[in-house]
């Protein structure tokens, strides 16, 4: 063997591999920088500006925040929005979990699972707004539901709470966002080793005990991701609340939209910053429980 080679100093070549991740992540980084970071910074900056009924003026004031945070309406509205978020979360969770559970554990063939999934997806290809407003004739005073209820004699008066109420707002939210809960939970469930279920049964667990002690703990990450989706969607909404409450209920998004509509951008921006911080805190708290990067 030639020992000469040992004298050759070790050289390390430049490798494209070293910068590849940066090149690959660049498009994402650029899009987010341009269309997310800069706009958000703009909003943050504007939130400290002054304004009158026609113009906004560069400045550095806290009045927008002070006005916002000292007003009772703000708190009330935030509470109401959080109430929506919590209720919608609760319902979508129950529905999403049950539906995902059925498809994941009670439907045996992969083709049937896919078919059922697609069935759930098709309605989402009709425009959201059309689907939303079509609840109105369904729930209205003379809508299908009331007529059906009166027809079969459940009530003799039309039920008024069905439309333009918290009921209809939450119903519509659940309707629009349930799928955002179903999908991640289903994904988590499909990753549960089927043997675990049998192992639980073998250990004497009833169906319910298996659910509580095995399936729910192992579906936590999916629940969490779904929760993030649903909560953030509800917290930022303004159109559903307005249309379905008949304009009678408040939400933070609506409050911001009202401010924007009268060009009170600094006030809207301050409100938006507060909303953003609250949502970020909520999500950060949730992310502490589960590292979604690992759980995916």
């Amino acid at each position: 063997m030639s020992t000469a080679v040992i004298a050759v100093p070790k050289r390390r070549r430049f490798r494209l591999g070293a910068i590849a991740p940066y090149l690959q992540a660049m498009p994402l980084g650029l899009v987010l920088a341009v269309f997310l970071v800069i706009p958000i910074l703009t909003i943050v900056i504007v939130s400290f500006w002054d304004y009158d009924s026609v113009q906004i003026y560069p400045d550095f004031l806290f009045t927008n925040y002070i006005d916002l945070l000292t007003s009772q309406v703000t708190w009330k509205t935030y509470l109401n929005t959080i109430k929506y978020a919590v209720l919608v979360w609760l319902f979508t969770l129950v529905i999403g979990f049950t539906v995902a559970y059925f498809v994941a554990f009670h439907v045996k063939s992969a083709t049937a699972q896919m078919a059922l999934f697609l069935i759930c997806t098709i309605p989402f290809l009709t425009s959201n707004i059309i689907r939303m407003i079509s609840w109105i004739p369904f729930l209205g005073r003379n809508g299908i539901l009331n007529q059906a209820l009166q027809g079969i004699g459940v009530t003799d008066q039309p039920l008024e709470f069905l439309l333009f109420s918290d009921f209809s707002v939450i119903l519509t939210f659940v309707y629009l966002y349930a799928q955002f809960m179903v999908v991640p939970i289903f994904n988590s469930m499909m990753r549960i080793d089927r043997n675990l279920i049998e192992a639980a049964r073998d250990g004497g667990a009833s169906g319910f005990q298996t659910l509580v002690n095995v399936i729910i703990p192992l579906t936590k990450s999916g629940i969490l991701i779904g929760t993030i989706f649903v909560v953030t969607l509800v917290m930022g909404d303004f159109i559903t609340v307005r249309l379905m409450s008949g304009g009678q209920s408040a939400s933070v998004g609506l409050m911001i939209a009202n401010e924007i509509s009268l060009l009170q951008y600094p006030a809207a921006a301050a409100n938006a910053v507060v909303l953003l911080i609250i949502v970020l805190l909520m999500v950060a708290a949730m992310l502490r429980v589960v590292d979604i990067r690992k759980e995916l």
Partner: protein
Amino acid sequence: AQNIKDVTLRQFGTGVSNLNAIADKVKSDLGFTLAMTALDSDAITQRAVTQPKSFDIADIEYWICKKVFPTGGLQPMDVKKIKYFDKIVPIFVTGKLTPESVIAQGTAPHTVSFVESPEAKAFAKQPTQWMTLIPTIYNADTLGIRPDLVGRPISNWKDLLDPAFKGKASILNIPSIGIMDAAMVCESAGLWKYADKGNMSKEEIDKTMGVLTEAKKAGQFRAFWKSFDESVNLMASGEVIIQSMWSPAVAAVRSKGIPCVYQPLKEGYRAWGGGLGIAKHLSGLELDCAYEYINWYLSGWCGAYLNRQGYYSAVLDTAKEFMSPEEWAFWMEGKPAAADILSPEGKVMEKAGAVRDGGAFVERMGAVACWNSVMDEDRYMIKKWNEFIAA
């Protein structure tokens, strides 16, 4: 050189006046293309302010103009280039329909119609050579009712808050307009008198919103509406039987065969008006086309087209030439229809013998109590409105 056929002017506004029929007619009469984009009133304000280059012609309301024009997105128009300027209904110039009229409260169009110079952003107190908006359509709003369901004659704004209509009333959810309705109600109920309903003091805002809030808590309202369509659907489906309403919306309900009345009230009307403005960035051939378009707008066909839908047009004389005498008599003079009245699409809107609610043009526009407005205290007002919605 540029060919006029290649010119496209982009106009945006609400669906009320952004009608495709007008664009078609422009194409055939003037040769250039008018691209119409319909938006809701919030989006219009946003777009006019934040994206002034995204349009060439803005079709906005006067109270919105009060906010938008000072931001600099529009250029004032030279009235010398407006052929029918002299014939424009004086409401938009002097504020008075007839020399004797009292100027109504609120953001009356003439107060935001003129600026001193092409560069000025502040509104002029008197008519000048520079006009901000050329009026297109306007109307006087009042309460719409379902005569079959209200069960009694309605004659005052205060009837809106009559507990008999609990859960069946509605108002507009556009703060600047909604509060005007509320003010009409308050005054009608004799609660107090406003110095200027269109420019309330904080105290007045508090009181007004207080009344609304109380009614809301008592369950008076079924819903608040924001778009034309919503108001029609609320009424047509029977969710609401009394609400402030636009005249064509009443017509739309009636066209479904559902009885609906545009009810004139003792206290008068709350009026609104819209106009066309030209974007700042427009110049050269395109600017010429814009003027041409505006002149065409006032030249009659368009006026007639809008009048037939229950709105009023800015230049009445020219519109009259494009309407049959029966139509003119029905729509403008408040006379019983001599023949079936047809919509622009040719559908029967009113049977022969019908009389227009509210009567003649002068009766209606002469009885305007206030205009939709932007107040000095609008920042406070928005806060209170949000409070009201959250209540």
